[in-house]
């Protein structure tokens, strides 16, 4: 084979090899980087049994209850369709709030309670001053009362 053809072959093979490894990395993303399962997926038994996984959703309003020992907390994760109870012992992040996003890592117990060993807060992409946020909240509350009347 001519030296120039050989060089071209090497280049094409390298690109192909790198492209293949890129595809493999993407496949890994697909399987392992199901970064979290939704409550609906967990309820449908799509999450791995007996293994640690992450559940993500919103903290259901009114569901946060601190236990008497002071550091254990119960709350419910929801995607508005299904609700999974979670129990966690440890410090919660600053942004952990009812009605806000949460990602918890842990195992699902036999009775369907998620035993979390890590709880992370997930925030949205909105940035605004408190006055604007309050105004928006008032506006959506007013809208709701109009609709229900």
């Amino acid at each position, binding site marked *: 084979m001519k030296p120039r053809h050989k060089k071209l072959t090497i*280049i094409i093979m*390298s*690109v192909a090899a*790198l*492209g293949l490894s*890129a595809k493999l*990395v*993407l496949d890994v*993303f697909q399987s*392992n*980087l*199901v*970064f*979290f399962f*939704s409550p609906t997926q967990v309820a449908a038994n799509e999450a791995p049994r007996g293994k640690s996984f992450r559940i*993500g959703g919103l903290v259901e309003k009114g569901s946060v209850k601190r236990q008497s020992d002071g550091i254990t907390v119960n709350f419910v994760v929801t995607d508005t369709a299904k609700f999974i109870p979670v129990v966690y012992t440890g410090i*919660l*992040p*600053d*942004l*952990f709030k009812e009605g806000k996003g949460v*990602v918890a890592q842990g195992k699902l117990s036999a009775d369907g309670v998620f035993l979390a060993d*890590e*709880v*992370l*807060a*997930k*925030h*949205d*992409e*909105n*940035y*605004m*001053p*408190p006055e*604007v*946020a*309050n105004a928006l909240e008032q506006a959506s509350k007013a809208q709701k009362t109009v609709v229900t009347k």
Partner: protein
Amino acid sequence: MAINWFKYSSPASFYSLAGKMTPLFSITAFALFVAGLYIGFFVAPTDFQQSEAYRIIFIHVPAAWMSMFLYLIMASWAAIGLAFNTRLSSMIATAIAPTGAMFTFLALWTGALWGKPMWGTWWVWDARLTSELILLFLYIGFMALQAAIDDPRRADKAGAVIALVGVVNIPIIYFSVKWWNTLHQGATVSLTQSPKMAATMLTSMLIMGLACWMYSIAVVLMRTRTIILERERHTMWVSELQGTA
């Protein structure tokens, strides 16, 4: 009047042009940094959700933007150098890599410092963070490969292959928050939607983005000049430059 655009593809002409342009971009970058930081810290209000921690955004997002943008520019110049066998194009690509790597590191570093108080962790292996880390590895791989190959033209070509194959990572980084479940939130600003950000916050972020861009151009022009001298050291025009020095 015919403009000879190809005049500046000669390293010698580009050398003097870049020398004149560098101060302009440096001064512009400095002014924009001052303006951007002033607005970000003294005009933009506090955030309803993240309080003052959100102000990291004014360096985190511009650094992330630059990390991706510089990679595309670097890959473009590398491709031109590969396709047209032009030396200067490859030199520019080589000059871009360190700055791109720096901004990628800063995106990851400032992101970690932002994630710890807000999310509750320094790091997670979600698609956004992992793909940005891969970008850092791509930059480092590019620089390491070029440093390992003695012949500059072969180094140019080998680097170009890595740069081009890695381009697929850029849309992965950008769309990661859309395609997969991630801890990192979605896009606050995009070309297709109105911004989900107060006006003064957005202004500062855009000015800082522009500042980082001007800074990058200035540093890359300067580094390109050095690379030109390194690689063209045996030419007449370089020795004449030394004669007058």
